[in-house]
């Protein structure tokens, strides 16, 4: 029996494996679906990765290579082109070029990352002509395959990948006509708004959505319109763009088909597993970290979180894991979710990551244990696009914890 199987060899999987190794575990296998380690970072050729971890700005492939090197230096085993088809506690089954392998293991870490929200969920009327891509697909086509996706582009959604692609395609010689965002604020990082849109005078239409796509064979035009507070298009506000390509950057979803099939309890808010402070899921010996758990905006936080999962999986494997009673962490009043959702009573210190549900200025994040306020942090600004965290140290977790956005 193996000690640890890590599913996914991207940013989270590599960091989890390295940290489990450094906590004393030697028999580790990373199972990766792609033809190389590094995951989605390999197609994220822009820079801005690693500022927290390495104190320098790296591109995605460079960031990945640092972690790949760390895994290689430790002699951590991996298998490529391997598709996991089934997980249950203490067993992972995958198909690889040499056949089907059933790997019995003491612990499992889920690090499958996320995928893009499918375009079917978008509900845009009209035909489905060629020239509609998700932003991530376009990113792979352009950066890895060297494919020319289009010349005149409209982007729906102002998530970071959409913004990054607006700049990327502009540099490649395309004309990005507009980025339409249905919300009154962008879901992307400020830095990307400035350096990907403003630098190239690409207009961002907030509170706008796509209402029509023209063209039967290939996209010939896209119409956007302003939306009211219920996100319904306002008649008469339409703007038409003549274009050959529409990119959709409408959000990411944790990739949990395998986890849900295995019976891992998932949160309806994050779409990822429900975890305790050890990042252990509802199933014995199965841990989760990175974008499979909740979608992150910075890869540095993915690595940080995955290292925690790796350390705890190591403790679990060594049998030094105490699983006592636990309390719940509740997200209320403007806090959309928290990770973890449970904390064991003996935890002592915990990092709680969370997101808020709207834009808040000059508010407080208030943490309560039962009815007692145990922490209050002033925040000049809170936005849904930026993941937040609070550190709780030396707390006796003998009552439920509540996080909220408050005026005082």
């Amino acid at each position, binding site marked *: 029996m193996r000690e640890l199987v890590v599913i996914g060899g991207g940013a989270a999987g590599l960091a989890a494996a390295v940290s489990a190794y450094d906590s004393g575990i030697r028999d580790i296998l990373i199972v990766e679906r792609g033809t190389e380690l590094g995951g989605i970072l*390999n197609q994220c*050729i*822009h*820079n801005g990765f690693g500022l927290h971890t390495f104190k320098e*700005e*790296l*591109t995605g*492939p*460079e960031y990945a*290579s640092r972690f790949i090197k760390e895994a290689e230096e430790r002699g951590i085993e991996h298998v490529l082109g391997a598709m996991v088809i089934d997980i249950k506690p203490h067993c992972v089954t995958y198909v690889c070029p040499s056949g089907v392998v059933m790997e019995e293991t003491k612990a499992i870490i889920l690090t499958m990352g996320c995928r893009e929200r499918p375009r079917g969920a978008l509900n845009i009327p009209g035909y489905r002509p060629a020239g509609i891509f998700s932003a991530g697909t376009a990113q792979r086509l*352009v*950066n*890895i*395959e*060297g494919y020319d996706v289009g010349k005149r582009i409209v982007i729906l959604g102002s998530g970071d990948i959409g913004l990054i692609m607006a700049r*990327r395609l502009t*540099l*490649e*010689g395309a004309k990005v006509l507009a980025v339409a965002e249905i919300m009154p604020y962008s879901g992307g*990082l*400020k*830095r990307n*708004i*400035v*350096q990907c849109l*403003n*630098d190239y005078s690409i207009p961002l239409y907030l509170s706008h959505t796509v209402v029509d796509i023209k063209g039967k064979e290939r996209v010939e035009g896209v119409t956007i319109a302003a939306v009211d507070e219920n996100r319904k298009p306002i008649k008469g506000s339409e703007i038409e763009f003549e274009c050959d390509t529409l990119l959709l950057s409408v959000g990411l979803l944790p990739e949990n088909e395998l986890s849900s099939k295995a019976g891992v309890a998932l949160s309806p808010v994050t779409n990822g597993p429900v975890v305790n402070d050890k990042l252990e899921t509802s199933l014995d010996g199965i841990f989760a970290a990175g974008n499979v758990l909740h979608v992150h905006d910075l890869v540095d936080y993915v690595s940080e979180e995955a290292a925690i999962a790796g350390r705890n999986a190591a403790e679990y494997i060594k049998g030094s894991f105490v699983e006592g009673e636990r309390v719940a962490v509740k997200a209320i009043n403007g806090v959309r979710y928290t990770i973890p959702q449970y904390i064991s009573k003996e935890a002592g210190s915990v990092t709680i990551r969370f997101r808020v549900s709207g834009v808040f200025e000059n508010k407080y994040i208030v943490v309560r244990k039962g009815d007692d306020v145990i922490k209050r942090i002033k925040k*000049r*600004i809170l*936005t849904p*696009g*930026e993941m937040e965290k609070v550190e709780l140290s030396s707390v006796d977790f003998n009552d439920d914890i509540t996080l909220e956005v408050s005026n005082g």
Partner: protein
Amino acid sequence: MAKSEFICINCPLGCMLTVEYDGNEIISVKGNTCPRGDKYARQELLAPKRTVTSTVRTEGSVHRRVSVKTVPEIPKKDIFRVMEEVKRTVVSPPLKIGDVIIHDIADTGSDLVATSDLGE
């Protein structure tokens, strides 16, 4: 006297910064909530710089592109001139991360370096 506006990118607050200047002389920076905004506005007005990241065509490799970046950052106004040169370039394996592909690209004084390895 002239005026320019910038959005500070150093934190999510995104302060709207207004710089008043006369030629190369900065008279005032307003709108910043902290000193980082002041520094950023001066830099953006007088000498904005960016790292350009892109890909270069390959020959003799199963990988069709290798990713690249400019080191150090180049003046913002030179971005498209640099891209012209990037687009004309073809490389062959082997390449390692950090290998210089073009010295002094488009006379900017910066190098174009590989950000991924390229094998055959």
